[in-house]
């Protein structure tokens, strides 16, 4: 296992606006460190190989798959997980529209999906239906058939432009 191939070291980063320092193996997955060391269990593991997007988090404004990121790579980074979403206007709106439109069923893909949708809207505040479909194609959902997720994203975009 990668994690035991080196000694533990101190790694510092910001998570949801707070500076955190952890003592971990540098090659541990960011996903495991968030969940185990920081108790941020809203970030989920679906496949462990970068296919499903359930472990998506923001790292310096990029959407990354935390199951593929060695924690050492997060040194000094600004991370945002679902637990910090309510502090961001765009993500807070998405949380509401996901609730209203039926965008969350079992909920396991929801944290990653909301962050992916937030990333999409940050780049493209008024996406077309096709752009939403393409923009979320890295995040698998097995419950909803996606349409109510698209509707939640489109509704969040509408609300943002009304503000």
């Amino acid at each position, binding site marked *: 296992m990668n994690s035991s191939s080196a000694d533990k070291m101190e790694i510092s980063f910001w998570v949801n606006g707070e500076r955190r320092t952890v003592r971990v193996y540098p090659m541990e997955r960011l996903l495991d460190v968030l969940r185990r060391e920081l108790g941020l269990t809203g970030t989920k593991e679906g496949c462990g190989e970068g296919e499903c997007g359930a472990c998506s988090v923001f790292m310096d404004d990029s959407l990354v798959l935390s199951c593929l990121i060695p924690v050492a790579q997060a040194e000094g980074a600004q991370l945002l997980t679902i637990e910090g979403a309510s502090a961001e206007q765009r993500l807070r709106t998405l949380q509401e529209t996901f*609730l209203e439109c039926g965008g969350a069923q*079992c909920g396991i893909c929801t944290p990653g999906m909301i962050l992916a949708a937030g990333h999409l809207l940050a780049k493209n505040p008024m996406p077309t239906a096709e752009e*939403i479909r393409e923009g979320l194609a890295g995040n698998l959902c097995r419950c909803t058939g996606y349409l109510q997720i698209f509707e939640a994203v489109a509704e969040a975009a509408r609300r943002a432009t009304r503000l």
Partner: protein
Amino acid sequence: MQDKLQENESLRAPTIVGSAQPRKEGRDKVCGRSQYVDDLRFPHMLYGATVRSQISRGKIAQVNFSPDFPWSEFVVVSAKDIPGQNSIPLIDNEQPCLADGRVNHAEEPILLIAHSDRHRLDHALRSVSIEYEELPAVFTIEESERQTQVIWGETNVFKSYLIEKGDVDEIWQHADYIVEGEYSTRAQEQLYIETQGIIAAYDPAQGITIWGSLQCPYYVHKALMHVCNLPADKVRVIQMETGGAFGGKEDYPSMIAAHTALLAMKSRRPVKIVYDRLEDMAATTKRHPSRTRHRTALSKEGKILGGEIEFVIDGGAYATLSSVVLSRGTIHAGGPYYWPSVRIAAKAVATNVPPHGAFRGFGAPQSLFALERHMDRIAQALHLSPAEIRRRNFLKPGQTTVTGQTIEEPIELETLLDRALALSEYESKQRRYADQNKDSRHAQGIGIAAFLHGAGFTGSGERYLSSLVAVEGCPDGGVRILVSSTEFGQGTNTVLCQIAAETLGLAYEDLTIARPDTSEVPNSGPTVASRTVMVVGKLVASAAEGLKQTLINAALLKPGYSRQDFRAACQRFLAERGPLRSIAQYQQPEGIHWDDQSYRGAAYAAFGWAVYVADVDVDRTTYSVSINDFVALQEVGRVLHPVLARGQILGGVAQGIGFALYEKVEWRNGRMANSQMTNYIVPTSADVPPIRVYFEELGNAHGAFGAKGIGELPMDGPAPAIVNAVVNALGVPFDSVPLLPENIFEALERAASNRWLRSSESR
């Protein structure tokens, strides 16, 4: 009961039932606060792993533990450590908890290992080697039928059914047409995004406690009593938030729970087993592969005179749920049509692959795929349109199904069909595509599937279950529902609270639902078979009505009460008289009779009915199929929550699209070779078409507020509708799913070479 509800409804139109109330646990889900089993950690917890067979069939000659590995730091459990029975009880007790001496499939658990550092488990797994005396294995329905290897009983058959209606042997001589066809479907993985997982803790005084991702708390409860040799009150099962299930968490959680419990009992420490994706896909259950043969007699008017249907499913290495999957598939094999006579011979056979299990639809998607493809084949043979052949043969109220059940619901399938045809512009598209397809790279086509799905357990199942629910008054004056029915995305929590709030005349916010915990909730049965809203919902309404009557009888509440009056009455009752609790138990409705021996009678209390239409585009250069439009029209009784109901249909259709066009389990010597999301392809957001969902609402006397089951129905129709559309586009028959580009390529090449041969001959 129903009269009382209707009386209430006439006084005050329902406002909570039928409206889009916020999902009860929704806010926790969108905020990432919901607790799934892998989010829990306990002090001193160990992580467990499973040593599985490496061969598909054989005897275990010897288990070798590498001598230079520090085994003393690990907890190891084998079959010898099982204090109770070495089997997972379900319908029979035939599947071992841990293999003892022999293995029957290549993912069979043999040993369990636990350690506090999960990263050290891989090394431990590699430090065990097992020597086998390998035996020849069977991997397909055909190999199993040939019985060259007998791997189960005397004939490799787990279960068989024979349904006979009328005298089918007599009809062939009167037939104007006889149409035959053979159809097949393959295994399909549920692919819930949360893999399976359980935590077990053991204490000699308290017994075993389980926290898990699961559908059926009382199935797990029963399994642990049996494996761990513990009395009922020494086993406690708690369902954590569950990240998708679709049937895949019906039976296998009992296996994982037993494994974690054995490790916890031996180590006296909490033990967590959470499968990674590879292990989950390879070792847990999938949809049963199937083969269906049809031989149908028709009159020149296009009426079905009768037919023979042979339906076979591959059960895998142990019987598990196969008999009930087979039963549902068999009863649905005649679809929504009137068969004056029919003989359905069905069997589930054994193979040396991991046991197949429950997956949304439970046998019906398999036999209905066959039937709905066959209806199109009949249409072609009779030179009728696919819509017309269905129209002429639809079941009508007063007629009987294949099991002799009289249709008492006022369903008009012709009206449903007409509406679906109009919504999908079926006829104009069919004409237009026929013209356009001749000289286009893109062949377009449109296909129909008409189908039904029985809600609730089959036959006498609900009577045997005798489900029990409770509602109780809370200290804050609100009401709490206690059921073992689980939420895994479908909306159990929300809809049951709506039903109780409506019945009690309270606000939706006044209702809460207990986390399913067998130490607290009664057994309302398993959360399967599209039964929760219809059967459990009706019991919740009944229990809520009882609670209200208790307060009225105690003179604490008067009819016409307000929400505040109720609150006060509830609190006063608790202060003056103690616990306020009302229970309700299932009673079979009058006039529902089923004979398990002859397989005759009322198979289901209600059916959902549907007509789906798929409009597809096949690229003749890449052989890929895309869906332009999809119309899903169904009658599921009263829709209790418009957003959740639509979500059930959308999700089911998407899984049906996967079943039809993408999802192929590749088997290599009895094990899944593509047990990764990278190469087992499910629909992504870029693959789903616009899916247009419509409901007819006729109501239903047996369900809460007129609701019927909804969850499984949408899985049945997409595959045949889509494949019928592809056949319509290309003019080449396809009779198996999944239908992949390579299958289309081969069929078109074959058709082209046949055409060339024919034209050469004619020259």
